[in-house]
């Protein structure tokens, strides 16, 4: 058991750190949930790609560096420590790309991955529907067969990035739920600017049009844009949400950097005699370290052939609760009402953290998964 990286991994870290120090924008970019910010973040993705840092874990042929999990986590640590911008390509790189590697054809990988890596095509996710949130099995939006493809009808909602993105991926009903609601679903990708697509941005709690409703009326999708076999969408999507909940969505580097900023804030702004606040800062430091170490242990298990599996639900509940607690502590350090009124980074971060326990599968659903799959409790009433 050890926590030291071999010299070649430390060399990789040094290379990343050096590049980031020279390339991370000095001034904060505008929020990527605005038109202006989206464009600025797209440029940042292109710059990352130019340094070959936009998708480090991908094979080189698609624009990556073929980095293993250890290097990927090290890169993320350096990325967030350097104060680099949030990733506008995260949906595509974190959710669609793993699915393409597992279930896509070589043609699909060659066509879809490089523009994703370059930031030329930014992807939105189209899972949820008005009547289907965490319960994806009750999806109703449908894809109807035509001569050389499919026509999409129905409505998607809460589609992250969709207000400004280029393309989307999602699940559509293509057959009767013959032997269960998970049957007859097909995973496909479509163009958000295709005829028949109407995108209506939804103002989020933080005032940004970060997600959107999609109204689909006869949107044509060619056969080549179906991922995997028609009717197998549920199984294919599950592999992606597994990684969404797990290591791919929230790397420890992000929380380590946030905990360090909180620690610095406490050292400069807090009354040293306020031990109640000190205790909460200590909890934030311990939480970030626990999350980092848990992730390293999971990475070690995966490196030895294990699966992330239901453990990724532990991961998701932990980081979403942690993120909220950390930001609440920061607001209290800043002085309550004053901090909440200022549209600063901590207040914005707090607003964003409120979404953590809700999205990527609510924490209630995650706790059901933990209880049933890790503790062997019976399935029952929700």
């Amino acid at each position, binding site marked *: *058991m050890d926590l030291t990286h071999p010299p070649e991994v430390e060399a990789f870290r040094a290379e990343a750190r050096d590049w980031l120090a020279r390339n991370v924008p000095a001034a904060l970019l505008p929020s990527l949930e605005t038109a202006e910010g989206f464009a600025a973040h797209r440029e940042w993705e292109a710059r990352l790609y130019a340094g070959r840092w936009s998708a480090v874990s991908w094979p080189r042929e698609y624009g990556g560096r073929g980095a293993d999990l250890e290097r990927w986590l090290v890169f993320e640590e350096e990325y967030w*420590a350097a104060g680099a911008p949030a990733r506008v390509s995260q949906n595509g790189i974190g959710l669609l790309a793993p699915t393409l590697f597992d279930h896509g054809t070589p043609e699909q990988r060659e066509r879809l991955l490089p523009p994703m890596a370059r930031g030329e095509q930014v992807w939105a996710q189209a899972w949820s529907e008005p009547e289907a949130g965490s319960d994806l099995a009750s999806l109703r939006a449908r894809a109807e067969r035509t001569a050389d493809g499919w026509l999409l009808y129905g409505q998607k909602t809460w589609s992250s990035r969709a207000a400004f993105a280029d393309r989307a991926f999602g699940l559509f009903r293509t057959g009767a739920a013959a032997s269960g609601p998970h049957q007859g679903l097909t995973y496909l990708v479509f163009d958000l600017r295709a005829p028949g697509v109407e995108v209506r941005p939804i103002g989020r709690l933080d005032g940004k049009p970060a997600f959107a409703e999609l109204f689909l009326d006869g949107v044509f999708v060619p056969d080549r844009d179906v991922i995997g076999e028609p009717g197998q969408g549920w199984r294919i999507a599950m592999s992606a949400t597994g990684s969404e909940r797990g290591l791919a969505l929230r790397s420890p580097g992000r929380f380590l950097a946030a905990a*360090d900023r909180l620690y610095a*804030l406490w050292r400069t702004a807090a009354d040293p005699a306020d031990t109640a606040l000190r205790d909460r800062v200590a909890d934030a*430091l311990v939480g970030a370290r*626990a999350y980092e*170490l848990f992730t390293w242990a999971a990475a070690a298990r995966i490196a030895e052939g294990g699966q992330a599996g239901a453990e990724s639900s532990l991961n998701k509940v932990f980081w979403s609760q942690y993120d909220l607690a950390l930001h609440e502590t920061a607001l209290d350090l800043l002085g309550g009402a004053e901090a909440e009124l200022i549209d600063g980074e901590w207040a914005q971060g707090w607003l964003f953290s409120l979404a953590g326990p809700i999205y990527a599968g609510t924490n209630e659903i995650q706790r059901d998964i933990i209880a049933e799959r890790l503790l062997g409790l019976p399935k029952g009433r929700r």
Partner: protein
Amino acid sequence: MRFLPTEEQTDFARAVRALLAAADVPAAVRAWSAGDFAPGRTVWRRLAAAGLFAPAAPEAYGGAGPLPVELAAAMVEVGRAGMPGPVVETASAAVLLSRLEGGPGGEAAARFVPRLVAGGEAASLLLPGGGPYALDADAAEHCFAVDAAGRLHAYGGPHPAGVAAVLRSADPARRPARLAPGGGEVLAAGPGVLAAARAAGDWARLLTAAQCLGVGEALLERTARYARQRTQFGMPIGAFQAVKHRLADTLLALEFARPLVWAAALSLDAAEVAAAKLAAGGAAYGAALTALQVHGAIGYTEELDLSLWLRKARPLRDAWGTPRECRAVVAGSWPHARRGTPAT
């Protein structure tokens, strides 16, 4: 980077687990609570013979260490089994005395450590800044106490003349003793003793954290099993979401405390050890509250073995570092605040 226990580390823990599973530890715990130490000491001698304490001391004194990861892994099993007695204190006393080698008290190391490590003798321990009580001093052969001036006192046992009073704990199998002031044999004195005491204190805190982890796991395992079997309203109570979620949160706390314990064992850094103790102690106590709630009234009885772990969790959470003390250490000397980006 391979942040998982090695085959050897897992094997050692498994051997300790098997040994404890073969003994009737619950009976030994009940006897210990009543002041009959014989059944517990029988298990103790078997554990010592199997090498439980070997990772605490160097080979020169019959040990195999120092190997804090191995000892922490074994201590999880000690917690899981609910083993009574000053296990943490004996291992930490071996650490303390081994550190005096070559300096003042080197003779004491040669005299006592082999008896603690392989001889099956038990020791209680008092350190500056630690709690005011010597655990199970009336059951142990030795009691070592370092005072604030750096003097190391040894009291002979098993019923040391220095014991002024044995108090009752929330866990009747833990017997905190107040020592009579003064007395005992002064084995060594000086800054070297204080440095050794600090190291021993970190080990005690780490090993208690590991023990907490095992206590929490035992509580969760028993409670999940009960929730699968016990029916109400025509179905197992484990099918109800309120029960599921409470057990899921208990597992969550334990699973995120575990890697902190391993990291603390690897570094023995004071702040990492404090973080591990904070997380593991909290997780174990949370597991106890969940266990009680899910078991209902049967959990509030002495007849159920569950009570042996239930009552252990809270005193262990506070032993060798309360949450408040641990948080103060973390905030004061956190080694990972290395990225220092400006406050926003």
